[in-house]
Every structure is written in structure tokens, then in C-alpha cells.
């Protein structure tokens, strides 16, 4: 550990009344992996966005390698040797790896592109850091892990000495994550520094040398990784001891929903699954392997091209209203784009699934009873915001999810607890939520399950799956393994299945 290569002093950033970063001071040393740990909304992304010049801080200074860094200038950050790998890759899928890496490195006035030199340089960089890539492969054909490697190479190609990785494991299988960690070790061994942003405690403890914990925009602690334990970090991150969600004993009932040989062209192949009342079945998998199509089929948004879906023995039409009417509680993956109608007020969103019956008569919306229902919902599910007349988009992610979950779990019942959904389809219900909201959502799912609902949980978060699921099935390339009891799975086995290594459904 040498002198700091990067020095942030007193960084403050406000968005209106919200203080996203409050006088944060942080040093990054040469040759270390520094983890930036914090809940969603703690200010991690804001801090690195300021570092990389996407935002301008309201106060504070940044020094890179002893030189002050001009604010709000990504080009200057790149020139100073700061490279960033975004969570959502910024690659052109229809171009080759080499093209993607060269993109933006050459002046537009240059008459002829120096591809040969760039190719040599890319191969040299790749070899030096042990990152194998095929320069002529089309990025669209690469796996997610390979694309991430291209992103890292893109930064290294520009001579990055400090690499920022924003939630890099969110899109990876456990095996791909392992390989990323090995790469990071390799990079720091060559003297580079890495800022690793995450909210997953295990991987932070595994990969980093030093951990900086952010909470509510403040730097609450900076500590060496070897001194940190999981519980301690969790407490620092949340600011209070964690209440663990407890799985209740499940009563497994009859099959309420059955998929038989369901196929969706280009997305699902011969998927069969039976869901029983009172159990949580989780579908694990890397994003983009058919989860969206599976959720669409089970939310009544699309009809399968092959096979059939039966709910309580009745074959269902692809018609959301029919599914809602049959007692299916649905939590969509994208709450902003699908879960709520952002411009409409909270109360109209609350009744959106039952606006005809019972919240209207003779074509007129019954405003008084609708609003009373919305008020009860907001209270019962602790939706905090500016009231039921505020547009739904003004809710924070967690409160928006509580609204969607509450709406789904209440049906149109007068009292929230009078209604038990037959089936709950929850697609990524805790994605992007802070730990508090995650716990709330988990508890609601467990409670509903204990009252007799069947729950299908589609998730990319293995911790969540292992914590909640009675049975687990893994989806890869549109094929679903049989759902087996959670205790029969091991983490490596799930990882292998996620990577498609288990072709035969009966191999273990």
C-alpha cells in the first residue's frame, strides 16, 4: 500500500432537499481493492458519478495522482486514468470487440483508422492482464461475463489506473463472479486500484482489501476487510441490528397452478411446473434466460405458443383481467414501467386492477369508496409518500413496490386480510430495494404463503432464493429444471444449472 492515488475531500451533492453525498472524504490507495458498500440510495452511485464527471459536486475536491481533477468532465477523468464499468454495459452489440474498444479513442478528423496498431495494443493489454477475448467477435454474440470483460478491457485500453466497477456481479452467475474476482486480484497485483461497488456482503468480504460503508449519504466507516465481519458490516450499512425474516412452517396443499409443456417461441421450451398452495417455488437464473416470458404467461399477458396453463384445473386465457379475477396476485419485474402508471395518482393506481368491479358502477368510478380503499391500502402496507393524490411516480422504489404488492395481495377486499390470493407471481420483487424494504417484501410473501397462497418467486438473487424457497427450479436458455426441494440444491449446483451445465434434468 503506497500513497493515495485518488483523494476525494469533502464531497457534497444535493438533489433538491435530498443530500445524496454529505461531506464524503475518501482515499484510494495504489494496488488495492476498495469496496464501496451501502444500501440502494446510500449515495454510492452518486459518489462515483461525481468522481467520473457525470455530476458536479456542490462542494469538495478530487485529486487524482496528485493533480486536481476538473469537475464535471468525463474526458478529464479518463485522461487522468479513471475508468468506469457501468452496471448496464455501454457496448454496441452489432460491432466487434475491437470496434467497441476503439470507439471514442480516435479523433473524428483522422482520415484513416489505426486498426492494426489498436489490435496489437488490445492483444498486448489482454495478455498482460490475463483477459482473453476474441477481437473480431461480435459483442452481441458474447455472454454477459464476456461482455463485462470487454468493458474492463475498454477501460484498460485507455490506460485506466483506477477502475470503478458498479455492481459488477449483479448480472453474473456465481462461476462468472469467481472469474471476475480472479481478474480483479490480477489487476491489483499489477498496481492498479479498483473501486468495487456492491451491496452484497459476502463478495465484498471476499474480494476487497478495504471497505468503505456509506449510509444515507454519509461515510459511516472505513475499515480493513480483515477486521470486518458480515454482521458488523450489515449493521453499519443499515444503522441498526437486522431483524431476520423467519420462514414459517409451510402447509403444502393441492396443486393450484400447473404448466404443461409450455413453450414460447424464442424464449421458453417445454416448461412444466406444478405450484401447490402454501409453498414458495423459486425460479433461479441469469437474467434473460426466459424469465420474462414465463412471468408474462403467468400474469396473463401472453398465451403460450405450445402447452397449456391451468389454474385450479381451469385452462386460462391470456387476459390479465381473467387472471386477476381468478385470484392471481402479480408483481411485475419493472415496477416503474409496468407496475404503476406514474402520471396517475396513487389512489387510481391502487384500484387499477379492479377499476370496473367493484370500484365502478354504471361506468362511473366510485370515487369515495376507491379513495377509502386506497387510504386503507396505504396504511396497511405502510406506503410512505405525499398521500393518495400524489402521482405514483413520486413514490420511492420501496414504497412503489409496497403499493403494487399491497394492491395485489388485497384484491378488492374491504379488509386487507380478508383475501387470500390463490397464486402470487412475483418477478424480481426486491430488485433495487434497500434492505428494509427487502425484508418487508419477504415477510409479506411468507405471510401470504402461510395463509395458503402458492408463491412463484422469479429472482436473480440467490441469497433471496435460498432464504425463502421451499422448492427451487433453475431456468437456462428457456428450459426449466424440475423444481426440487431447496435442501437438495447446493450453491455450486445452482450455479452450474444457471450456466446451463446440467443438460439432463435428472443429473445432479
Amino acid at each position, binding site marked *: 500500500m503506497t500513497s493515495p492515488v485518488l483523494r476525494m475531500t469533502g464531497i457534497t451533492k444535493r438533489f433538491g432537499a435530498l443530500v445524496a453525498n454529505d461531506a464524503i472524504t475518501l482515499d484510494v490507495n495504489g494496488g488495492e481493492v476498495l469496496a464501496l458498500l451501502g444500501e440502494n440510495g446510500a449515495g454510492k452511485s452518486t459518489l462515483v458519478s461525481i468522481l467520473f464527471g457525470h455530476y458536479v459536486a456542490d462542494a469538495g475536491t478530487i485529486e487524482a495522482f496528485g493533480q486536481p481533477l476538473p469537475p464535471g468532465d468525463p474526458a478529464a477523468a479518463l485522461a487522468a486514468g479513471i475508468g468506469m464499468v457501468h452496471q448496464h454495459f455501454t457496448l454496441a452489440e452489432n460491432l466487434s470487440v475491437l470496434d467497441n474498444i476503439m470507439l471514442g479513442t480516435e479523433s473524428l478528423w483522422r482520415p484513416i483508422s489505426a486498426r492494426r496498431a489498436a489490435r496489437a495494443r488490445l492483444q498486448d493489454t489482454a495478455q498482460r492482464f490475463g483477459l482473453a477475448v476474441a477481437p473480431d467477435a461480435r459483442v452481441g454474440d458474447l455472454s454477459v461475463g464476456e461482455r463485462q470483460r470487454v468493458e474492463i478491457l475498454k477501460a484498460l485500453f485507455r490506460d485506466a489506473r483506477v477502475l470503478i466497477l458498479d455492481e459488477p456481479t449483479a448480472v453474473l452467475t456465481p462461476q462468472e463472479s469467481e472469474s471476475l474476482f480472479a481478474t480483479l486480484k490480477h489487476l491489483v497485483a499489477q498496481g492498479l486500484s479498483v473501486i468495487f461497488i456492491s451491496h452484497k456482503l459476502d463478495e465484498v468480504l471476499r474480494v476487497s482489501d478495504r471497505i468503505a460503508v456509506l449510509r444515507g449519504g454519509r461515510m459511516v466507516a472505513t475499515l480493513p476487510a480483515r477486521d470486518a465481519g458480515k454482521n458488523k458490516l450489515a449493521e453499519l450499512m443499515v444503522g441498526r441490528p437486522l431483524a431476520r425474516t423467519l420462514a414459517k412452517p409451510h402447509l403444502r396443499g393441492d396443486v393450484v397452478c400447473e404448466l404443461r409443456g409450455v413453450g414460447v417461441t424464442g424464449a421458453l421450451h417445454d416448461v412444466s411446473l406444478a405450484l401447490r398452495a402454501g409453498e414458495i417455488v423459486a425460479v433461479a437464473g441469469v437474467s434473460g434466460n426466459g424469465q420474462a416470458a414465463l412471468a408474462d404467461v403467468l400474469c396473463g399477458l401472453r398465451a403460450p405458443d405450445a402447452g397449456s396453463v391451468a389454474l385450479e384445473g381451469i385452462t386460462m386465457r391470456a387476459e390479465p383481467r381473467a387472471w386477476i379475477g381468478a385470484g392471481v396476485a402479480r408483481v411485475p419485474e419493472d415496477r416503474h414501467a*409496468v407496475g404503476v402508471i406514474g402520471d396517475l395518482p396513487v389512489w387510481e393506481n391502487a384500484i387499477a386492477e379492479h377499476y370496473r368491479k367493484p370500484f365502478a358502477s354504471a361506468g362511473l368510478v366510485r370515487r369515495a369508496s376507491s379513495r377509502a380503499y386506497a387510504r386503507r391500502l396505504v396504511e396497511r402496507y405502510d406506503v410512505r409518500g405525499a398521500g393518495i393524490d400524489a402521482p405514483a411516480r413520486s413514490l420511492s422504489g420501496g414504497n412503489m413496490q409496497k403499493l403494487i404488492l399491497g394492491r395485489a395481495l388485497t384484491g378488492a377486499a374491504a379488509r386487507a386480510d380478508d383475501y387470500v390470493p390463490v397464486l402470487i407471481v412475483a418477478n424480481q420483487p426486491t430488485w433495487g430495494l434497500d434492505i428494509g424494504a427487502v425484508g418487508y417484501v419477504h415477510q409479506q410473501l411468507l405471510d401470504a404463503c402461510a395463509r395458503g397462497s402458492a408463491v412463484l418467486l422469479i429472482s436473480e438473487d440467490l441469497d433471496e432464493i435460498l432464504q425463502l424457497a421451499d422448492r427451487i427450479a433453475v431456468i437456462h436458455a428457456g428450459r426449466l429444471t424440475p423444481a426440487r426441494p431447496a435442501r437438495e440444491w447446493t450453491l455450486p449446483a445452482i450455479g452450474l444449472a444457471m450456466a446451463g451445465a446440467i443438460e439432463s434434468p435428472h443429473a445432479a
Partner: protein
Amino acid sequence: MRLEARAELSRSMLVAAPFVAIAATLAIAAAFVAWAGAPVGRTYALIFDGGFGSRFAWSETLTRATPLILTGLAAAVAFRARLYNIGAEGQLYVGALAAIAVGGLHGGTGFELPAAVLHPAMLVAAMAAGALLMLVPALLKTRLGVDEVVTTLLLNFIALLFVSMMLDGPMKDPMAMGWPQSVALQDTLELAKLIERTRVHTGLLYAIALAVLLWGLFRYTTFGFEARAVGANARAAAFAGVPVQRTVVVVALLSGALAGLAGAIEVAGRTGYVTLDMSPGYGYSGIVIAMLAGLNPLGVVAAAIFVAGILVGADSMSRGVAVPTYIADVIVSVALLSMLVATAFARYRLRWN
């Protein structure tokens, strides 16, 4: 320099937006007036006086506002559901033609039915014609995903050529001395005058009543909820069980019917027959009016009166100072652009960095 979404939308800013836009419009148009070599203050005074300065000015403005309210409502209704009907002009013409087809004199006599039957039949025919013309783009959009902006816009030309064909053919008035003009409407079907010795007719009451009705429709009915939900976020609406495609088609029919009705009301209230220049772009002005009104049906009435006042005022102004009446078109067009910019600023803030 870039735009950043405001964390909270302020209602007062959204209400202030049209007024700021109008102020900006007058400032920008002043440059054109000055360019034409006319005194700015006097020109605006004349426009205002010609549009709103007297009983006569008001009567002319309200006469002009009547079709504009209806085309404005046609646009507002469609735009609320994010259905961009640019075809109100064509729908207005086929509506006018349908009104004459039902209520006109053909070969000396029309249908010999009591006015109490023929009058509603005429209005229904006009609405059906406008709705039918809008049905084509609506089905192309919902079934095949064809962009309705293109289809409705291009249908205007088809509709106008069709009207032209009819005016030179089967519906030509033999007494018009070769002018392409339709046969006249039966006298009994003409709308009564609202104020004596002016041109204001009861069509204005139809228009205002419809504005109130549509405001209630959007605010209080399940259909209004469906249309607003589809317009605000069609994916989320579909997820919640709103029949999106059916809603879009119904909104399209409603929008087309309103524009078609504008044609019938013009024929029955003002012209008495169809000509190819009966609408100086009422269909297109309706879009400006709907935007100025923030797509609120009640706001449409106010915005239509404002635009009508400018158009009428510019006519009388051009007789007083040497500024062409085209300045009215410039003002109305700039008003649309200013309104779009003003709404954008109400939703986003500009950051200089």
C-alpha cells in the same frame, strides 16, 4: 447544458405554462411585425381590438371559435390517450360532406322528413363519417403497429381529394356557375343565431356542452380512466387489465366523430354548403389549441377563443397597418412551439454544466 427532470412537478408551474408561452409568443412575433415595418404596439392593439374589442369583434371571434373548440376537443381526446390524430382536417371535411348528404337539397328537394328527425340524423352522419375515417388509422395502429401520425396526416389529402371529387361530381351545385361547391343545406336545418345580427350560432352551445361532457367523461368514468391510463403508460395499463387496443379504437372513433361534427356545425351554422376552402386549417389549429389547453377539455374552450381572437383580430388589423394576415398563422404556430417549450421547462430544469 442539459435537461434534468424536476423531482416534483409543481401544479402552479403547469398552470402558468400557457400564459408564459403566450407572452413569449407575442414577444417573438413582435420581431416579425417590426420586420414588416409596422409599429408593434399599434399592430397588437389592432389585433386585440379586432378580436375582442367590441360586441361585433366578440361575435366574430366566437363564430370562429366554434369549429376550433370541436377540433381542439378532437385532438385533446386523442392526445390524452397518446393517439396522435393529425387528421382532424380531413375528418372535418368528410363530416361536412356527410351533413350535406343527409340534409342537403338534391335535385331541388332534400329528404322530406321533419327537421326534428333530419337534424340529429345530419349530425350523426357527420360524426359517423369522421369516426369512420379515423377507424382506418386506428385499426392499422392497433393491428399492425402503423404509426398513426403518418396515416392520419396522409388521409387528410385523400379526404380532401375525395371531397373535391364529390364537389365536382355527384354533389356539385348546378346553380354555382361552375364553382366546385356542394348543393346547399335545407333551410330548416340551419342552426339558429345566438345573437341577432351576428353570425354566432347555437353550434357554440353544442361545442361548449361537449367540452363539459368530455371533461366529466375523463374525470369520472371508467372509460376516462382507461383512456388516461393508456395514454400515460400503455404497458402498465395492459398489465392492470385495461383493454388497451379497444380503448385506443374507441378514443379514435370519438376523436374522429368530434372533428366530423365540427364540419357539420360549420355547414349548418355558417356556410350552408361545402366548399374546398371552408376550413382555413381548423383541423391543424385544433392541435395547437389542445396543446395550449394542456389537453384539458375545459381549457380547450379558452384556448380556442384565444386562437380565434388572434385570427379574427389579424384580419381586421391587416386593414389598418401593412402587416399581412399571415402574422396570425405565425403567432399560432409560435404559440404551439412556445407551449411545448414551456411544458418542457415545467417538467425539466436546465442545468448549465
